[in-house]
């Protein structure tokens, strides 16, 4: 290949990110990276939220509220995280939706009959679990961050917001549905991201596949436990 002559005259070649973005393999890699970031957030957020179960400290303040306060005070960290998350969700969602749309043109005439031999439901419904998560996040922000859809929102009193918020049946159902979607999304996503980034050695791949199911289920269950615990009266303000 005439690399030398070509690159002398060629216009500056596109950046690596844009090359990645231009191909489906690259897009998947970006989805995997953003997926990892988002997953880490979900995990961290979950760990933070577990403090709901830890009640009050010696001063009588709810641990979860103190934690929230700490986060709110670390403005730099907070905003950095928010920006990373926002960009990640945007990249991740836009790529996911684009790939989904491209899929339609790859098979314009569908099968009359199609039987799945060996794939998980989670893998075939990523776009729908993803979209549900997207809707959920919007709702969730209006619920617990801005309080717009909260019946009795108290800025800064996370414990109160949560325990009150989850007394509404409608909200709990929405969370349940979303957490199931999240579980499904992660069940496939946590496995698939290894493939997307080039790590597919069959020896580890089998384990990754199984562990993804375990981790996804644990995350979903742990998240579901909050509204259920509140509803069951186990956590009370």
């Amino acid at each position, binding site marked *: 290949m005439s*690399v030398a002559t070509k690159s002398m005259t060629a216009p500056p070649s596109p950046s690596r990110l844009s090359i990645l973005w231009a191909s*489906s393999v690259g897009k998947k890699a970006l989805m995997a990276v953003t997926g990892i970031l988002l997953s880490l957030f979900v995990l961290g957020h979950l760990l933070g939220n577990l403090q709901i179960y830890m009640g009050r400290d010696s001063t009588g303040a709810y641990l979860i509220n103190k934690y929230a306060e700490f986060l709110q005070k670390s403005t730099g960290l907070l905003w950095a995280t928010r920006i990373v998350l926002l960009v990640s969700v945007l990249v991740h969602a836009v790529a996911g939706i684009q790939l989904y749309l491209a899929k339609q043109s790859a098979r*314009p005439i569908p099968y009359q009959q199609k039987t*799945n031999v060996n794939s998980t439901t989670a*893998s075939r419904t990523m776009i729908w679990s993803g979209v549900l998560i997207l809707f959920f996040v919007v709702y969730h922000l209006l619920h617990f961050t801005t309080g717009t859809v909260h019946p009795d929102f108290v800025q800064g009193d996370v414990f109160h917001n949560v325990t009150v918020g989850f007394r509404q049946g409608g909200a709990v159902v929405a969370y349940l549905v979303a957490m199931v979607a999240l579980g499904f999304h992660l069940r496939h996503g946590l496995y698939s991201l290894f493939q997307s980034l080039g*790590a597919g050695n*069959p020896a580890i791949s089998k384990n990754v596949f199984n562990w993804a199911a375990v981790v996804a289920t644990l995350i979903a269950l742990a998240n579901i436990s909050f509204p259920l615990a509140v509803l069951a009266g186990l956590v009370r303000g």
Partner: protein
Amino acid sequence: MKLTLDIWRQKGAAGPGRFETYSVEANEHMSFLEMLDVLNQDLISQGKEPVAFDSDCREGICGMCGFVVNGVPHGPDNNTTICQTHMRHFRDGERLRLEPWRAAAFPVLKDLVVDRSAFDRIIQAGGFISVRTGSAVDGNSILVPKNDADRAMTAAACIGCGACVAACPNAAAALFTGAKITHLGLLPQGAPERIDRALNMVAQAAKEGFGHCTTIGECEAVCPAKIKLEVIARMNGDFIRGVFKKREEEAVAGGA
């Protein structure tokens, strides 16, 4: 055994198609294609045009045969071509639906026959090692660890049938493309072109209109050559590495 078949009939590439229903008397020792031969002989004697389907070797190696039976590429005997599937896998009285591979990159030419030349163009984009006839060194001058040679062979076993595309909900050619990239990439002989190969073949697959891989795994479940998803991971890895490497090379070559 008596079977009822709903077969996709389409006169030509342009024409619309539809399912037509036939019944055929078969026996369990026949291969699936022999059962269709019997049907075709019947049709001919009734003055009806026989069903067009591709086949050549009829022993599972050439990759020419293939259509979807009851929603599964190459039929119910998984990891087996349809030419090697025998009627003992079916029950008397069963109803089967035969449909061609469906993918934008595999247009139907007639009945169950599709055009898979897109695969050729993917190989032309980089599925080779550039070595002049006559310029090779002695076969033993480059040692290849047995394990690498074996793994390369496992990937090289792809018969190019297209079932992976047919099975994939995204109509991706990832298993096929990955198999070739893996086969050549594992061997020292294929190393010098590894980066370009991945970049060019992946780009060509997209250009042909194949979808993308989301690790669904239906391809692996039907692949008659038992190609594993590992090859897709290697393709992805080589591609990503390629994107980064390529830029460095261009910088060295005096480009941007």
